[in-house]
């Protein structure tokens, strides 16, 4: 799984800390999205690893692991598309 992770960020203290023009490192994340969520999806044992939730997640937060699928809760917004798309009802939305 290759996806950006949360990076540390300090507001520049001097002008030279700013980039030239409006160009900076791609995929540089400094804030989470977890606070946007009221409910979190939980992948249950009913999962058959069909990958529909992985494919249709607008945020790409569902990822493959050696033991099946997992969710990056730092960036999951809790939209529930995964729950809807799952053919086996293997994803449950749980109130935060």
């Amino acid at each position, binding site marked *: *799984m*290759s*996806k*950006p992770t949360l990076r540390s*960020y300090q507001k520049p203290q001097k002008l030279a800390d700013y980039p030239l023009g*409006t160009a*900076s*490192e*791609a*995929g*540089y*994340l*400094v*804030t989470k*999205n977890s606070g*946007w*969520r009221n409910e979190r999806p939980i992948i249950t044992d009913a999962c058959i690893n*069909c*990958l*529909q939730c*992985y*494919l*249709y*997640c*607008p*945020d*790409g937060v569902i*990822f*493959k692991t050696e033991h099946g699928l997992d969710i990056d809760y730092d*960036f999951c*917004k*809790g*939209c*529930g*598309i995964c*729950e*809807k*798309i799952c053919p086996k009802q293997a994803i449950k939305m749980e109130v935060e």
Partner: protein
Amino acid sequence: MSNKITAKTITDSEFFYGHKACAGCGGSLAVRIALKVLGEEAISVLPAGCMSAVGFNYPHLCFSNNSIISTFAGTASMLTGVEAGARAVGIKNFKTVGLAGDGGTADIGIQALSGAIDRNDDILYICYDNEAYMNTGIQKSGLTPFGAKTTTTPSGENVHGNIRPKKNLFEIVAAHDIPYAATASIGNLPDFINKIEKASKIKGTAYIHVVAPCPIGWGIPVNETIEIARKMMDCGLWYLAEYENGQFKLNKNPRYFSSVEDYLLAQGRFKHLAATDIETLAAQRDAKWAAIRKIWNTTEEEL
């Protein structure tokens, strides 16, 4: 076909990640999938609009591939410059892709898009169509369908939302005799993925028009984005098609349609429609499909 990109074989890398799009955003799914198919060699150009607004907030930058925001009108012209510039400085194995919304494509950006197709620049242009200016808060665009209520096409006693039909941008683009154009929907990602892959191998301009519902603008729950996209195809108000070698081809030719009324009334933006409005839309659908089936190549293909 076994060599097609599937959920199993598509790269694990995420190129549009940590973005600030609304929960359940269809546009962000379209962009995410497009970049996963194109990979790290994609150089993407996004105009002012939802996806640039949610992806490029310094210092929080959500595209892992090379990406740039263009002016609202300038997606295609900047793609042209990026493509020429990349070649000029000797970069090899790159793919320039435009990711623009319906307003940025069908309204303010259509001149630059037309120019790029006319030059047959080696670019891929993907329009994610959510049927209104969603970034500014749901205003009518040239791709807003007949009857839809937006903040600039309110529904009332006299006018029931937008009074004009949706521009047929797929056929406008095809009329340039573009090497490749296709329609798609985030309701059918395998089809969308195949079309992106096909388009990425086209030498010259390729265009994909992907419907990507906006739950807020359409007035649906945020978890129903995919469902509503599927209903739109099932009821025949959207179709999957391609234009290639001067021919139109219908990818899926359903024997019968689901109810237009069910599709429309599932959405807040159509709640006000009268029975006659719904009949008008159904009649427009039937006329369009009659024309398609008469003129286009309707050979069914595996999807």
